[in-house]
Structures are given as structure tokens and as C-alpha cells.
């Protein structure tokens, strides 16, 4: 199986098993809900449940076959879960930070969480120095604010902890530069 190794360190059977797992994680909850779909008794053709059933069960069947096939190959050479940790740590951290950012926007509105997120991200991606980690995020936040909230006139949701009238500010700039 050496030729099936790729640069990302996952063997082909590991990828196949991972694919099957990912698809099953989505399709199994779907399969439990098919029976809840309303069926029109007068529908003579391919009913409301038939198309979802076809997709979901075909997918589950294919995934089970793929997982079985991959498991047989994996038994020959066991995977090393510890190899995956360095690969997954970055994306998982970003995923959690994204969740915190979304929550932060709901609490403090757009400006502060976005500035904080940009500072974190510039440092996360290896930038150093105040110009890149403070000045660039500040500049970027202002650009975003100008394009989306002033130019496009998007309404900013109010924060539950910190709330300020950003829309009124954006509207006054819009009228100043001649936008409706």
C-alpha cells in the first residue's frame, strides 16, 4: 500500500473509511426522519418519501460497502491516530474561534469582535510586529465597515451586551457621500 500514501499522510484505506464515516454521520440522522415526511394519499407517483429514501439508503449502502472494504485493508496496517492530531489541531482551533466570533458578534456587535478576530488570525498565521498584527486588522475592519455597512447599507444586528447605533452612523455617511 506504499504507493497509496499521499503527502498528507493518510493512506487510501484510511481515506475511504473516513469518507464512509463522514457520509454515514450525515445520512443516518436523515434515515431516522424519512418516516416523518408527510405523504399525500392522493399522490399516485413517486411519493414524498421515495426520493429521499432512494438517496439516503443508496448512500448508506455504498458507505457501508466502502467502510467494510477499507477496514479489511486497514487491519493489515493499523492507522496511527496520533499522526492526525497535528493536522486537525489548526482547523479545529479555527472552527472554535469562528464559533466564538459568531457568538461575540451577537454580544458586542460587529466592530470589536472582528478586530479581535483579525488580531488573533494574523498572529495565528505567523505574522509579527504591530503593523501587521494591529494596524492591518484596524485598517481591514474599517474597509469592511465602509464596503458592507456604508456602501451596501447592511443593517448591523444589535449586541446584547454592547450596543451602539452603527446604522445611524453609516446612514449619515451614506447621505454625506450622496447615497440614498
Amino acid at each position, binding site marked *: 500500500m506504499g504507493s497509496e500514501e499521499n503527502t498528507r499522510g493518510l493512506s487510501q484505506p484510511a481515506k475511504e473509511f473516513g469518507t464512509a464515516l463522514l457520509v454515514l454521520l450525515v445520512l443516518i440522522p*436523515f434515515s431516522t*426522519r424519512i418516516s416523518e415526511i408527510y405523504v399525500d394519499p392522493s399522490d399516485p407517483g413517486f411519493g414524498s418519501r421515495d426520493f429521499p429514501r432512494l438517496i439516503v439508503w443508496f448512500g448508506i449502502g*455504498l458507505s457501508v*460497502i466502502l467502510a467494510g472494504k477499507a477496514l479489511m485493508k486497514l487491519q493489515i496496517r493499523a492507522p496511527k491516530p496520533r499522526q492526525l492530531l497535528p493536522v486537525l489541531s489548526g482547523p479545529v482551533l479555527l472552527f472554535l474561534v469562528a464559533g466564538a466570533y459568531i457568538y461575540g458578534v451577537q454580544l458586542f456587535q460587529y466592530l470589536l469582535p472582528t478586530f479581535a478576530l483579525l488580531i488573533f488570525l494574523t498572529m495565528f*498565521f505567523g505574522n509579527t510586529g504591530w503593523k501587521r498584527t494591529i494596524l492591518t486588522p484596524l485598517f481591514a475592519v474599517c474597509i*469592511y465597515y465602509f464596503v458592507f455597512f456604508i456602501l451596501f447599507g447592511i443593517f448591523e444586528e444589535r449586541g446584547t451586551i454592547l450596543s451602539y447605533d452603527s446604522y445611524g452612523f453609516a446612514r449619515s455617511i451614506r447621505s454625506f457621500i450622496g447615497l440614498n
Partner: protein
Amino acid sequence: MGILDGFSALFSSWQPAFFAILGTLIGLVGGAIPGLSSGAMIALLIPVTYYLDPLAALALIYTVSKSSDFGGSIPAILFNTPGTPQASATQIEGFPMTQQGKQGKALKMAVIASAQGDLFSELLLIFGAATLAVYAAELGPPEFVAIYFCAFVIIGGLLGKSVIIGFLSVILGLALSLVGTDPITADDRFIFGVNELLDGIALVPVLLGVFVLAEVFSKAADKAYDIMDQPIAGKSDDPTDSYVTFAEYCRVLPTMLRSTGIGAAIGMLPGVGSAVACFVAYSEAKRKSKTPETWGKGEIEGIAAAESANNATSGANLIPLLTLGIPGSTAAALLSGVMLIHGVEIGPNIFTTSYDIIYGVFAAGLLCIATYFVVGYWGSGYVGALVGRIPANMVYPIIFVTCYVAVYATRQATFDMVIMTIFGLIGFLMKRLDMSLPAFVIAFILGPGLERSMRQTFLLDEAGGWIFLERPVALGFFALGAFAFFMRLLQRSE
């Protein structure tokens, strides 16, 4: 004359032509930034299109996709780093030319070949798609079921290393397209108690998640931020090394024409990307060459072959979208997303329901080719120098935050940010597992159409399924799908 009407629509106000030129410049520079795929770039721009009229929105997206195909060759030639995957073939001959001080010649060859291939492809689209659409408009639900079947088999089966993984990418896309309401009874399904899902999973968060956020997650996983660490090599003293001579042009012309044909033919097949076209054209040109020993050491003919094939796919791969409603590539899938957002009907009726818009988009395509030819011929070196100065580790934080601001801008719903984050993770996992993101997205977009066609078909035929036997076109597409599948299996067993 459709295309003249298209130009008239394009210049009817300042917006469409302006955004066509802006899109060309964005695509040229964005395509030249390694690590930022054209799909990601287009997905990032989709929220902006909400605020434009339909023609300006489509012109922007279409021109970005076209010019980024050429833009990707600039860092491939100058820095040995392809800006897009399809520029890898150009890199083989382009970078050795740069090392010899002939980067000017290499870049000019790339832009000439790109524009020539692109022009042929665009003309094929303009005059071929409308003709085919007349026949496609006669097709009914059974034929469309067969067409969808055929497309999914080709998209799922032909891409990637594993047929089953390809099919599972399609299945995943189809399954997630089921979320929302039943298209006939309008009752909710698979919403798992989340009322925000009643209208289904919104397209823009999915596109931004799988094409953009997933790319940032991948970079975070690989910790590969510093991409271009090489200065541009010095120029040769020979002035003829900075442009393509007439003799050289005449020598490579047959290769360019042949490669254009290869690119256009491959481009029309759903799911087979331009990267395949480039390498097929490059290999074919090398095979036919009288001096194959010079290839890999800076052969200008190799650049001509790869670039003309690369850009010849860009117009041709819209033919399945405009005639059958099947987006055959990532760019076409994204373009179809913008069409859906703006209420432009996808499929053969587009030539009657959105005549001005579609010919306006074709005109934008021609304007784009002229623009990137002019800018590329005289300004590629400057674009390269500009891109070389962009620190890659500043690009990803900006892209990440832009995703969130942009997705919020589309519907002003925080829920879309959540959906995009989830799809970013799903997209990252799919990339790691070698699943096909284009197949997933195309299936997600086409899922409702397939379901509607299937249910309409079975309403037409209460006996269930036998109607397909009475429809020769449907049988033809089923046979084509089955043939493609068995050919793929045969190829695997070899």
C-alpha cells in the same frame, strides 16, 4: 443577431461593462495569488453580486473565472508556483524559461495562447449553445432524469482516484439538498427542529464554506503560508527574448489550434476540469514534437499547448449549463448559483427568458478576453511583481474574515455564518479525504431539479418507470452514463 444585442445590453448602463472589466482585473490578480483558487475567489464575490443587477453580477463572476485561468500562469512562470492547479502544465516549461531570462517571452506566449484558446471557446459557446438549446428545450422530465443520471455518473465517477468516493460526494450533496420543504407538498423535512432550515440550506454559505473557508482550514492544517520566496530572475540581454517573434508564433500555431480543440472538447464534458485538458494537450504536443528532448527545459510550444487548452475550456464548459442546466465545472456551478440568486432560469429556456442577460454575459466574455490580453501582454510582469509582494500569511486572515462579513451581508442572518462554518469544516474533511468538492456542490445545486423531474416523470407514467423505454433520448443518456461508468471501471482495472 444575439451577440450584438448582448453588447448593447452590456453597454446599456455603466454597471455591466464596469464590472466585466473589474472582474477581469480581479481574476487576473487573484488567479496569480497562489493558494487562492478561482473557485474561492468567485465564492467570495458572490455576496457582492446581491447588490448588483443580474447582468452586472453575472458579468463580474464570469469574467473573474475566465481571467483567473490566465492569471494562474503568471506565478507558475515567474516563481515556479502555479496560481491555479491548471497552471501546473505551464510551469513545466515556463519556469525554466524564466531561469534563462526569457520570462517576458514566456508570459507573452501564455497570454497569446490563452486569448486565442479563450476566443475560440467563447465563439463556440455563443454560436453552439443557442443552437443546442433549441433541441434541449423540447426535452421533458424523463429526459432530464436521464441527463441528471448521466451527469452524476460522469461527475462522480470520472473525477478523483476512487469511483465510490466520487459517488459518495454526489450522494452527500444530494442528501443535503433535501433539507427544507418538499417541492410538491411544501411540507417540511429534515430540518431537525431548526426553523431557519425551512427554506433549505442557503447556497451562499455552502459555497463560501466549502470553497473558501475549507481552503483556510487546509492552510491552517498544513501550516504552509509562505509560498513565494524566490525573487524574479534577471532578464536576458537579447531583446528578442522579451517577446514572441513572428516565426515562433507560426511554429506554435498548429499546436495552439490542436490544443484549443482538445480544451474545448474536454471543457464540454461535465466534471472534467481544465487541469485535465492542460495536461492532455501538453502531453499530446510533446508526443508530436520533433524535438521532445527540449521539453521540460523551457520549450515555448509547451506553454502554448497548455495555455490554449486551459482557456479553451472556459467558454465550452458553460455549454452543458446553458443547454441542459447541468453545471459542468466549479466555475459553472458558482455561476449557476448567481443565476439562481438573481432569478435567472438555468437551462435551455434561458435563451428566451433571459435573452439580453445571457448574450450580455457572452459580450462580457469577449470584453474580458480583450482586456486580459491587453493587460496581460504589457502588464503581466507588473502583476507578478505585485503578487510577489503580497505576504501569503496575511492573505488567509483577510479571506477568513471576509467570508464572515460577506456571508452576513447576503441575508443579514447570523445563522448563515454558523452554516458556513459547519460547511467549512465539512469541506476541509472532504478535501483531506480526496472527496470531490465540485461534485458535491453540483449535486447540491441540481438535487431539487432531479427530484422534481423524477416525481413529474412518475406522475406521467403511473405504471412506474416504463416511460423511459418510450423515450429514445432518455435511453441514450442512460446508455451514455452507463458507458462512461464501465469505461471508468475498465480503466481502474487496468
